[in-house]
Protein backbone atom coordinates (compact mmCIF):
# COMPACT_ATOMS: atom_id res chain seq x y z
CA UNK A 1 0.00 0.00 0.00
CA UNK A 2 2.51 2.52 -1.21
CA UNK A 3 1.52 6.18 -0.75
CA UNK A 4 4.43 7.88 -2.46
CA UNK A 5 5.89 5.88 -5.32
CA UNK A 6 9.23 6.83 -6.80
CA UNK A 7 9.95 4.71 -9.83
CA UNK A 8 13.16 4.61 -11.79
CA UNK A 9 13.93 8.26 -11.19
CA UNK A 10 16.88 9.89 -13.05
CA UNK A 11 18.04 13.44 -13.03
CA UNK A 12 20.82 15.15 -14.94
CA UNK A 13 21.92 18.72 -15.54
CA UNK A 14 23.52 19.12 -18.92
CA UNK A 15 25.68 16.01 -19.26
CA UNK A 16 26.11 15.60 -15.51
CA UNK A 17 24.10 12.83 -13.94
CA UNK A 18 22.98 13.67 -10.42
CA UNK A 19 20.55 10.89 -9.58
CA UNK A 20 19.98 7.59 -11.30
CA UNK A 21 17.61 4.68 -10.88
CA UNK A 22 16.04 5.86 -7.65
CA UNK A 23 13.22 3.53 -6.62
CA UNK A 24 11.44 3.75 -3.33
CA UNK A 25 7.97 3.24 -1.89
CA UNK A 26 6.78 5.25 1.06
CA UNK A 27 3.78 4.43 3.22
CA UNK A 28 1.36 7.04 4.37
CA UNK A 29 2.43 8.64 7.65
CA UNK A 30 6.05 7.59 7.43
CA UNK A 31 8.79 10.01 8.46
CA UNK A 32 11.65 9.65 5.97
CA UNK A 33 15.06 11.05 6.81
CA UNK A 34 17.39 11.59 3.86
CA UNK A 35 21.12 11.76 4.43
CA UNK A 36 24.16 11.69 2.18
CA UNK A 37 27.35 13.55 1.31
CA UNK A 38 27.17 17.22 0.40
CA UNK A 39 26.25 17.74 -3.23
CA UNK A 40 25.07 14.14 -3.77
CA UNK A 41 21.60 15.21 -4.83
CA UNK A 42 19.42 15.18 -1.71
CA UNK A 43 17.96 18.61 -2.42
CA UNK A 44 17.52 17.63 -6.04
CA UNK A 45 15.48 14.61 -4.96
CA UNK A 46 13.36 16.84 -2.73
CA UNK A 47 12.85 19.35 -5.55
CA UNK A 48 11.49 16.55 -7.71
CA UNK A 49 9.19 15.37 -4.93
CA UNK A 50 8.04 18.96 -4.77
CA UNK A 51 7.58 19.01 -8.57
CA UNK A 52 9.68 22.15 -8.60
CA UNK A 53 11.66 20.43 -11.35
CA UNK A 54 10.85 17.54 -13.66
CA UNK A 55 12.87 14.30 -13.68
CA UNK A 56 14.95 13.44 -16.70
CA UNK A 57 13.44 9.97 -16.57
CA UNK A 58 11.06 8.09 -14.30
CA UNK A 59 8.27 9.52 -12.21
CA UNK A 60 6.91 10.23 -8.76
CA UNK A 61 3.27 9.59 -7.89
CA UNK A 62 1.39 10.45 -4.77
CA UNK A 63 -1.42 8.08 -3.95
CA UNK A 64 -1.38 6.83 -7.53
CA UNK A 65 -2.23 10.24 -9.02
CA UNK A 66 -0.63 11.69 -12.17
CA UNK A 67 2.83 13.15 -11.62
CA UNK A 68 2.63 16.86 -10.81
CA UNK A 69 4.16 19.41 -13.14
CA UNK A 70 4.67 22.20 -10.62
CA UNK A 71 4.46 22.73 -6.85
CA UNK A 72 0.91 22.61 -5.54
CA UNK A 73 -1.20 22.33 -2.44
CA UNK A 74 -0.49 18.62 -2.05
CA UNK A 75 3.12 19.32 -1.12
CA UNK A 76 4.21 21.42 1.81
CA UNK A 77 7.77 22.59 2.11
CA UNK A 78 10.15 24.17 4.58
CA UNK A 79 13.61 25.27 3.52
CA UNK A 80 16.59 26.08 5.65
CA UNK A 81 15.88 29.79 5.17
CA UNK A 82 13.42 32.19 3.53
CA UNK A 83 10.43 29.91 4.07
CA UNK A 84 8.17 32.60 5.51
CA UNK A 85 7.09 35.91 4.04
CA UNK A 86 8.99 38.76 5.65
CA UNK A 87 6.35 41.37 4.84
CA UNK A 88 3.54 39.51 6.63
CA UNK A 89 3.11 39.36 10.37
CA UNK A 90 3.38 35.96 12.03
CA UNK A 91 -0.41 35.58 12.10
CA UNK A 92 -0.79 36.77 8.50
CA UNK A 93 1.82 34.26 7.43
CA UNK A 94 -0.45 31.54 8.75
CA UNK A 95 -3.56 33.06 7.19
CA UNK A 96 -1.65 33.24 3.88
CA UNK A 97 -1.72 29.45 3.87
CA UNK A 98 -5.45 29.77 3.19
CA UNK A 99 -5.77 33.10 1.41
CA UNK A 100 -3.15 32.42 -1.25
CA UNK A 101 -5.34 29.66 -2.65
CA UNK A 102 -7.96 32.18 -3.83
CA UNK A 103 -8.15 34.01 -7.17
CA UNK A 104 -7.00 37.35 -5.74
CA UNK A 105 -4.99 36.08 -2.81
CA UNK A 106 -7.47 37.66 -0.38
CA UNK A 107 -10.25 36.19 1.69
CA UNK A 108 -13.70 37.59 2.15
CA UNK A 109 -14.33 39.05 5.54
CA UNK A 110 -16.05 36.00 6.98
CA UNK A 111 -13.56 33.58 5.54
CA UNK A 112 -10.84 35.78 6.97
CA UNK A 113 -12.32 35.56 10.41
CA UNK A 114 -12.54 31.78 10.25
CA UNK A 115 -9.00 31.55 8.89
CA UNK A 116 -7.88 33.86 11.67
CA UNK A 117 -9.33 31.49 14.25
CA UNK A 118 -7.57 28.53 12.69
CA UNK A 119 -4.36 30.60 12.57
CA UNK A 120 -4.73 31.31 16.28
CA UNK A 121 -5.09 27.60 16.97
CA UNK A 122 -1.95 26.94 14.99
CA UNK A 123 -0.15 29.78 16.79
CA UNK A 124 -1.01 28.06 20.01
CA UNK A 125 0.32 24.75 18.76
CA UNK A 126 3.58 26.19 17.51
CA UNK A 127 3.87 28.34 20.63
CA UNK A 128 4.03 31.68 18.86
CA UNK A 129 0.84 33.33 20.11
CA UNK A 130 2.80 35.88 22.10
CA UNK A 131 4.46 37.21 18.91
CA UNK A 132 1.41 36.95 16.62
CA UNK A 133 1.68 40.53 15.41
CA UNK A 134 5.41 40.75 15.01
CA UNK A 135 7.23 40.42 11.72
CA UNK A 136 9.44 37.40 11.03
CA UNK A 137 12.65 39.44 11.05
CA UNK A 138 12.15 40.10 14.75
CA UNK A 139 11.92 36.39 15.56
CA UNK A 140 14.81 34.10 16.38
CA UNK A 141 15.84 31.51 13.80
CA UNK A 142 14.08 28.74 15.70
CA UNK A 143 10.84 30.67 15.93
CA UNK A 144 10.99 31.43 12.22
CA UNK A 145 11.33 27.75 11.39
CA UNK A 146 8.46 26.86 13.74
CA UNK A 147 6.38 29.41 11.89
CA UNK A 148 7.45 27.99 8.52
CA UNK A 149 6.40 24.49 9.59
CA UNK A 150 3.12 25.75 11.00
CA UNK A 151 2.44 27.64 7.81
CA UNK A 152 3.13 24.60 5.66
CA UNK A 153 0.89 22.41 7.85
CA UNK A 154 -1.90 24.98 7.79
CA UNK A 155 -2.29 24.37 4.05
CA UNK A 156 -2.92 20.68 4.85
CA UNK A 157 -0.48 19.16 2.37
CA UNK A 158 -0.42 15.42 1.75
CA UNK A 159 3.34 15.26 2.10
CA UNK A 160 5.65 17.61 3.94
CA UNK A 161 9.17 18.23 2.61
CA UNK A 162 11.90 19.61 4.85
CA UNK A 163 15.30 20.58 3.43
CA UNK A 164 17.71 20.86 6.34
CA UNK A 165 15.08 22.74 8.32
CA UNK A 166 17.31 23.07 11.38
CA UNK A 167 20.62 23.55 9.56
CA UNK A 168 20.97 27.19 10.60
CA UNK A 169 20.03 26.74 14.25
CA UNK A 170 22.28 26.37 17.24
CA UNK A 171 22.39 23.02 19.05
CA UNK A 172 20.08 23.95 21.90
CA UNK A 173 17.37 25.33 19.66
CA UNK A 174 17.78 22.30 17.45
CA UNK A 175 16.84 19.96 20.26
CA UNK A 176 13.76 22.02 21.05
CA UNK A 177 12.78 21.87 17.41
CA UNK A 178 13.07 18.08 17.44
CA UNK A 179 10.60 17.86 20.27
CA UNK A 180 8.32 20.32 18.55
CA UNK A 181 8.39 18.39 15.29
CA UNK A 182 7.77 15.03 16.98
CA UNK A 183 4.78 16.39 18.85
CA UNK A 184 3.24 17.87 15.72
CA UNK A 185 3.77 14.63 13.89
CA UNK A 186 2.21 12.53 16.60
CA UNK A 187 -0.89 14.73 16.35
CA UNK A 188 -1.23 14.75 12.57
CA UNK A 189 0.43 11.60 11.28
CA UNK A 190 1.79 13.48 8.26
CA UNK A 191 4.04 11.86 5.63
CA UNK A 192 7.33 13.71 5.98
CA UNK A 193 10.60 13.78 4.00
CA UNK A 194 13.44 15.48 5.79
CA UNK A 195 16.89 16.11 4.38
CA UNK A 196 19.54 16.52 7.05
CA UNK A 197 23.29 16.68 7.38
CA UNK A 198 23.15 15.30 10.84
CA UNK A 199 22.98 11.49 10.92
CA UNK A 200 21.99 11.47 14.55
CA UNK A 201 19.09 13.81 13.84
CA UNK A 202 18.03 11.64 10.92
CA UNK A 203 17.86 8.50 13.03
CA UNK A 204 16.27 10.27 15.98
CA UNK A 205 13.38 11.70 14.02
CA UNK A 206 12.94 9.32 11.09
CA UNK A 207 11.02 6.09 10.77
CA UNK A 208 13.29 5.30 7.86
CA UNK A 209 16.64 6.78 6.90
CA UNK A 210 17.51 6.84 3.19
CA UNK A 211 21.20 7.20 2.38
CA UNK A 212 22.07 8.69 -1.01
CA UNK A 213 25.44 7.86 -2.52
CA UNK A 214 27.07 7.09 -5.83
CA UNK A 215 27.12 3.32 -6.27
CA UNK A 216 29.41 3.65 -9.31
CA UNK A 217 32.27 6.01 -9.82
CA UNK A 218 34.19 6.87 -12.98
CA UNK A 219 37.50 8.41 -11.90
CA UNK A 220 37.96 10.06 -15.32
CA UNK A 221 34.51 11.61 -15.40
CA UNK A 222 33.02 12.24 -11.97
CA UNK A 223 29.81 13.55 -13.51
CA UNK A 224 29.09 10.38 -15.38
CA UNK A 225 27.19 8.42 -12.79
CA UNK A 226 24.56 9.75 -10.45
CA UNK A 227 23.73 8.93 -6.86
CA UNK A 228 20.95 6.64 -5.73
CA UNK A 229 19.60 5.23 -2.49
CA UNK A 230 22.36 2.94 -1.24
CA UNK A 231 20.93 2.17 2.19
CA UNK A 232 17.41 2.22 3.52
CA UNK A 233 17.46 1.89 7.31
CA UNK A 234 14.54 1.15 9.55
CA UNK A 235 15.00 3.72 12.30
CA UNK A 236 11.93 2.97 14.38
CA UNK A 237 13.80 0.67 16.71
CA UNK A 238 16.90 2.81 16.95
CA UNK A 239 18.55 2.45 13.59
CA UNK A 240 19.40 -1.10 12.50
CA UNK A 241 19.69 -1.45 8.73
CA UNK A 242 16.89 -3.65 7.51
CA UNK A 243 17.49 -3.58 3.85
CA UNK A 244 20.42 -3.00 1.55
CA UNK A 245 19.26 -1.57 -1.77
CA UNK A 246 22.25 -2.53 -3.87
CA UNK A 247 25.74 -3.81 -3.47
CA UNK A 248 28.10 -0.85 -3.66
CA UNK A 249 30.50 -1.85 -6.39
CA UNK A 250 33.21 0.68 -7.00
CA UNK A 251 34.92 -1.30 -9.70
CA UNK A 252 31.86 -1.59 -11.89
Amino acid at each position, binding site marked *: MSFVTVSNLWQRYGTRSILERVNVDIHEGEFISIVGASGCGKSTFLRML*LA*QEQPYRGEIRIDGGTPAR*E*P*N*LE*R*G*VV*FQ*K*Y*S*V*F*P*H*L*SVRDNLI*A*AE*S*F*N*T*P*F*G*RLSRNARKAAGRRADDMLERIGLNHVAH*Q*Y*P*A*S*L*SGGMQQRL*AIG*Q*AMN*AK*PRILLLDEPFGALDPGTRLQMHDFLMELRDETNMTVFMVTHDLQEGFKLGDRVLVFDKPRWDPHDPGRYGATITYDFDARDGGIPFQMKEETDVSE
Partner: protein
Amino acid sequence: MRWINKIPERPAAILLAALPFLAIFLAYAIASDIRLEANPQDKLLPAPSTIVETAQRLFTEPDRRSKEILLWNDTLASLGRLAAGVGIAATLSLAIGLAVGLLPYARSTLSSVIAVLSMVPPLALLPILFIVFGLGETSKIVLIVIGITPFMTRDLAQRVLEIPHEQIVKAQTLGASSAVIAMRVALPQVLPRLISNVRLSLGSAWLFLIAAEAVASNVGLGYRIFLVRRYLAMDVILTYVMWITVLAFLIDWLLKNLSRRAFPWMEAGL
Protein backbone atom coordinates in the same frame (compact mmCIF):
# COMPACT_ATOMS: atom_id res chain seq x y z
CA MET B 1 44.69 57.79 18.51
CA ARG B 2 43.67 56.98 14.97
CA TRP B 3 41.51 59.51 13.16
CA ILE B 4 38.92 56.84 12.47
CA ASN B 5 38.43 56.48 16.22
CA LYS B 6 38.14 60.17 16.97
CA ILE B 7 34.56 61.26 17.32
CA PRO B 8 33.63 64.94 17.58
CA GLU B 9 31.60 65.93 20.64
CA ARG B 10 28.08 67.28 20.22
CA PRO B 11 28.78 71.06 19.97
CA ALA B 12 31.86 70.55 17.81
CA ALA B 13 29.90 68.29 15.48
CA ILE B 14 27.23 70.93 14.89
CA LEU B 15 29.88 73.55 14.28
CA LEU B 16 31.63 71.28 11.80
CA ALA B 17 28.40 70.63 9.92
CA ALA B 18 27.79 74.37 9.65
CA LEU B 19 31.31 75.06 8.46
CA PRO B 20 30.98 74.18 4.76
CA PHE B 21 27.74 76.15 4.45
CA LEU B 22 29.41 79.13 6.04
CA ALA B 23 32.37 78.73 3.72
CA ILE B 24 30.14 78.65 0.65
CA PHE B 25 28.24 81.67 1.86
CA LEU B 26 31.40 83.63 2.59
CA ALA B 27 32.98 82.74 -0.73
CA TYR B 28 29.86 83.91 -2.50
CA ALA B 29 29.58 87.09 -0.45
CA ILE B 30 33.18 88.03 -1.12
CA ALA B 31 33.01 87.27 -4.84
CA SER B 32 29.78 89.23 -5.08
CA ASP B 33 31.33 92.11 -3.24
CA ILE B 34 34.31 92.25 -5.56
CA ARG B 35 32.11 92.34 -8.64
CA LEU B 36 29.71 94.90 -7.19
CA GLU B 37 32.67 97.05 -6.25
CA ALA B 38 33.68 97.15 -9.92
CA ASN B 39 30.15 97.57 -11.25
CA PRO B 40 27.39 98.41 -8.79
CA GLN B 41 24.77 97.27 -11.30
CA ASP B 42 26.36 93.91 -11.88
CA LYS B 43 23.67 91.28 -12.15
CA LEU B 44 25.75 88.14 -12.13
CA LEU B 45 26.45 87.81 -8.42
CA PRO B 46 23.88 89.93 -6.60
CA ALA B 47 24.62 90.78 -2.99
CA PRO B 48 23.14 88.35 -0.44
CA SER B 49 20.92 91.16 0.81
CA THR B 50 19.57 91.66 -2.71
CA ILE B 51 18.79 87.98 -2.95
CA VAL B 52 16.93 88.07 0.34
CA GLU B 53 14.91 91.07 -0.86
CA THR B 54 14.17 89.41 -4.18
CA ALA B 55 13.18 86.21 -2.45
CA GLN B 56 10.84 88.10 -0.16
CA ARG B 57 9.29 89.82 -3.12
CA LEU B 58 8.96 86.62 -5.14
CA PHE B 59 7.30 84.75 -2.31
CA THR B 60 4.88 87.46 -1.28
CA GLU B 61 4.25 90.10 -3.93
CA PRO B 62 1.82 89.40 -6.75
CA ASP B 63 2.89 90.02 -10.30
CA ARG B 64 1.92 93.42 -11.65
CA ARG B 65 0.26 92.00 -14.71
CA SER B 66 -1.46 88.86 -13.56
CA LYS B 67 -2.04 89.81 -9.93
CA GLU B 68 -0.88 86.38 -8.91
CA ILE B 69 2.22 85.37 -7.06
CA LEU B 70 4.22 83.81 -9.84
CA LEU B 71 6.47 81.71 -7.65
CA TRP B 72 3.56 79.80 -6.18
CA ASN B 73 1.99 79.33 -9.58
CA ASP B 74 5.29 78.06 -10.93
CA THR B 75 5.71 75.74 -7.98
CA LEU B 76 2.24 74.27 -8.31
CA ALA B 77 2.61 73.74 -12.05
CA SER B 78 6.02 72.11 -11.76
CA LEU B 79 5.12 69.93 -8.81
CA GLY B 80 2.00 68.80 -10.64
CA ARG B 81 4.01 67.79 -13.67
CA LEU B 82 6.64 66.15 -11.54
CA ALA B 83 4.06 64.18 -9.59
CA ALA B 84 2.27 63.06 -12.73
CA GLY B 85 5.49 62.06 -14.48
CA VAL B 86 7.00 60.27 -11.54
CA GLY B 87 3.68 58.66 -10.64
CA ILE B 88 3.18 57.26 -14.10
CA ALA B 89 6.80 56.15 -14.31
CA ALA B 90 6.51 54.41 -10.94
CA THR B 91 3.33 52.60 -11.91
CA LEU B 92 4.69 51.54 -15.26
CA SER B 93 8.00 50.40 -13.90
CA LEU B 94 6.28 48.47 -11.14
CA ALA B 95 4.01 46.64 -13.56
CA ILE B 96 6.72 45.90 -16.09
CA GLY B 97 9.30 45.17 -13.42
CA LEU B 98 7.02 42.58 -11.79
CA ALA B 99 6.27 40.95 -15.13
CA VAL B 100 9.90 40.83 -16.19
CA GLY B 101 11.06 39.64 -12.80
CA LEU B 102 8.46 36.91 -12.43
CA LEU B 103 7.56 35.64 -15.89
CA PRO B 104 10.25 34.04 -18.04
CA TYR B 105 8.25 34.90 -21.16
CA ALA B 106 8.06 38.57 -20.27
CA ARG B 107 11.73 38.49 -19.37
CA SER B 108 12.73 37.06 -22.75
CA THR B 109 10.57 39.58 -24.55
CA LEU B 110 11.32 42.78 -22.70
CA SER B 111 14.66 42.66 -20.96
CA SER B 112 16.85 43.52 -23.94
CA VAL B 113 14.56 46.23 -25.25
CA ILE B 114 14.49 47.85 -21.81
CA ALA B 115 18.28 47.67 -21.60
CA VAL B 116 18.56 49.43 -24.96
CA LEU B 117 15.90 52.02 -24.19
CA SER B 118 17.62 52.94 -20.94
CA MET B 119 20.64 54.03 -22.98
CA VAL B 120 18.77 56.40 -25.31
CA PRO B 121 19.36 60.06 -24.46
CA PRO B 122 15.78 61.29 -23.96
CA LEU B 123 16.54 64.99 -24.42
CA ALA B 124 17.45 64.36 -28.04
CA LEU B 125 14.00 62.93 -28.69
CA LEU B 126 12.24 66.05 -27.49
CA PRO B 127 11.18 67.26 -30.97
CA ILE B 128 9.47 63.96 -31.68
CA LEU B 129 7.72 64.08 -28.33
CA PHE B 130 6.41 67.52 -29.10
CA ILE B 131 4.96 66.40 -32.39
CA VAL B 132 3.38 63.28 -30.97
CA PHE B 133 2.13 64.66 -27.68
CA GLY B 134 1.75 68.34 -28.47
CA LEU B 135 3.29 71.27 -26.66
CA GLY B 136 1.03 71.05 -23.65
CA GLU B 137 1.43 69.25 -20.35
CA THR B 138 1.52 65.80 -21.92
CA SER B 139 4.89 66.07 -23.58
CA LYS B 140 6.53 67.37 -20.40
CA ILE B 141 5.12 64.52 -18.40
CA VAL B 142 6.05 62.04 -21.11
CA LEU B 143 9.63 63.29 -21.12
CA ILE B 144 9.89 62.58 -17.41
CA VAL B 145 8.30 59.17 -17.90
CA ILE B 146 10.59 58.25 -20.77
CA GLY B 147 13.57 59.58 -18.90
CA ILE B 148 13.23 57.64 -15.68
CA THR B 149 11.08 54.57 -16.40
CA PRO B 150 13.72 52.32 -18.02
CA PHE B 151 16.13 52.68 -15.15
CA MET B 152 13.46 52.10 -12.52
CA THR B 153 12.05 49.14 -14.41
CA ARG B 154 15.43 47.46 -14.70
CA ASP B 155 16.14 47.90 -11.06
CA LEU B 156 12.73 46.66 -9.92
CA ALA B 157 12.92 43.61 -12.19
CA GLN B 158 16.31 42.89 -10.66
CA ARG B 159 14.86 43.16 -7.17
CA VAL B 160 11.99 40.84 -8.04
CA LEU B 161 14.53 38.34 -9.29
CA GLU B 162 16.40 38.67 -6.02
CA ILE B 163 13.40 37.62 -3.95
CA PRO B 164 14.52 34.24 -2.58
CA HIS B 165 13.16 31.57 -4.86
CA GLU B 166 12.18 29.66 -1.73
CA GLN B 167 9.40 32.16 -1.15
CA ILE B 168 8.03 31.75 -4.65
CA VAL B 169 8.05 27.97 -4.26
CA LYS B 170 6.47 28.22 -0.84
CA ALA B 171 3.68 30.39 -2.20
CA GLN B 172 3.02 27.80 -4.89
CA THR B 173 2.72 25.07 -2.28
CA LEU B 174 0.11 27.28 -0.61
CA GLY B 175 -1.85 27.22 -3.85
CA ALA B 176 -0.97 30.70 -5.09
CA SER B 177 -1.45 31.44 -8.80
CA SER B 178 1.00 33.61 -10.75
CA ALA B 179 -1.21 36.62 -10.15
CA VAL B 180 -1.39 35.99 -6.41
CA ILE B 181 2.37 35.56 -6.25
CA ALA B 182 2.81 38.84 -8.08
CA MET B 183 0.36 40.77 -5.93
CA ARG B 184 0.86 39.22 -2.54
CA VAL B 185 4.47 38.07 -2.50
CA ALA B 186 6.49 40.11 -4.97
CA LEU B 187 4.66 43.44 -4.99
CA PRO B 188 4.77 44.18 -1.28
CA GLN B 189 8.42 43.24 -1.14
CA VAL B 190 9.49 45.55 -3.95
CA LEU B 191 7.35 48.51 -2.89
CA PRO B 192 10.02 49.84 -0.50
CA ARG B 193 12.50 49.53 -3.32
CA LEU B 194 10.12 51.42 -5.58
CA ILE B 195 10.16 54.28 -3.15
CA SER B 196 13.91 54.35 -2.94
CA ASN B 197 14.01 54.22 -6.73
CA VAL B 198 11.70 57.18 -6.90
CA ARG B 199 13.99 59.00 -4.49
CA LEU B 200 16.98 58.17 -6.66
CA SER B 201 15.22 59.19 -9.86
CA LEU B 202 13.85 62.49 -8.63
CA GLY B 203 17.08 64.27 -9.51
CA SER B 204 16.80 63.20 -13.13
CA ALA B 205 13.07 63.92 -13.09
CA TRP B 206 13.72 67.51 -12.07
CA LEU B 207 16.29 67.78 -14.80
CA PHE B 208 13.91 66.56 -17.47
CA LEU B 209 11.18 68.77 -16.12
CA ILE B 210 13.38 71.84 -16.25
CA ALA B 211 14.56 70.95 -19.74
CA ALA B 212 11.01 70.44 -20.99
CA GLU B 213 9.75 73.60 -19.36
CA ALA B 214 12.62 75.51 -20.92
CA VAL B 215 11.50 74.48 -24.39
CA ALA B 216 7.84 75.35 -24.36
CA SER B 217 5.80 76.59 -21.44
CA ASN B 218 4.23 79.59 -19.83
CA VAL B 219 4.45 78.61 -16.21
CA GLY B 220 6.75 76.46 -14.11
CA LEU B 221 9.97 76.74 -12.15
CA GLY B 222 12.16 75.71 -15.09
CA TYR B 223 10.29 78.08 -17.37
CA ARG B 224 10.90 81.00 -15.06
CA ILE B 225 14.59 80.25 -14.64
CA PHE B 226 15.15 80.11 -18.37
CA LEU B 227 12.98 83.15 -18.95
CA VAL B 228 14.74 85.43 -16.53
CA ARG B 229 18.03 84.18 -17.84
CA ARG B 230 17.19 86.43 -20.77
CA TYR B 231 18.02 89.41 -18.65
CA LEU B 232 20.49 87.75 -16.34
CA ALA B 233 18.33 88.17 -13.26
CA MET B 234 20.60 86.03 -11.14
CA ASP B 235 18.82 87.10 -7.97
CA VAL B 236 15.68 85.44 -9.29
CA ILE B 237 17.57 82.43 -10.63
CA LEU B 238 19.37 81.86 -7.34
CA THR B 239 16.14 82.18 -5.39
CA TYR B 240 14.51 79.62 -7.65
CA VAL B 241 17.49 77.29 -7.45
CA MET B 242 17.43 77.41 -3.67
CA TRP B 243 13.67 76.94 -3.67
CA ILE B 244 13.98 73.87 -5.92
CA THR B 245 16.67 72.54 -3.61
CA VAL B 246 14.37 72.99 -0.63
CA LEU B 247 11.49 71.31 -2.47
CA ALA B 248 13.70 68.42 -3.53
CA PHE B 249 14.84 68.03 0.03
CA LEU B 250 11.30 68.05 1.38
CA ILE B 251 10.09 65.50 -1.14
CA ASP B 252 13.02 63.25 -0.38
CA TRP B 253 12.37 63.54 3.33
CA LEU B 254 8.68 62.80 2.90
CA LEU B 255 9.39 59.72 0.81
CA LYS B 256 11.93 58.47 3.29
CA ASN B 257 9.44 58.79 6.09
CA LEU B 258 6.64 57.31 4.04
CA SER B 259 8.83 54.30 3.41
CA ARG B 260 9.61 53.92 7.09
CA ARG B 261 5.96 54.21 8.09
CA ALA B 262 4.51 52.07 5.35
CA PHE B 263 6.86 49.13 5.63
CA PRO B 264 7.35 48.32 9.28
CA TRP B 265 8.53 44.83 8.41
CA MET B 266 11.66 46.32 6.81
CA GLU B 267 12.70 47.80 10.13
CA ALA B 268 11.94 44.77 12.27
CA GLY B 269 15.16 43.20 13.41
CA LEU B 270 16.14 40.79 16.08
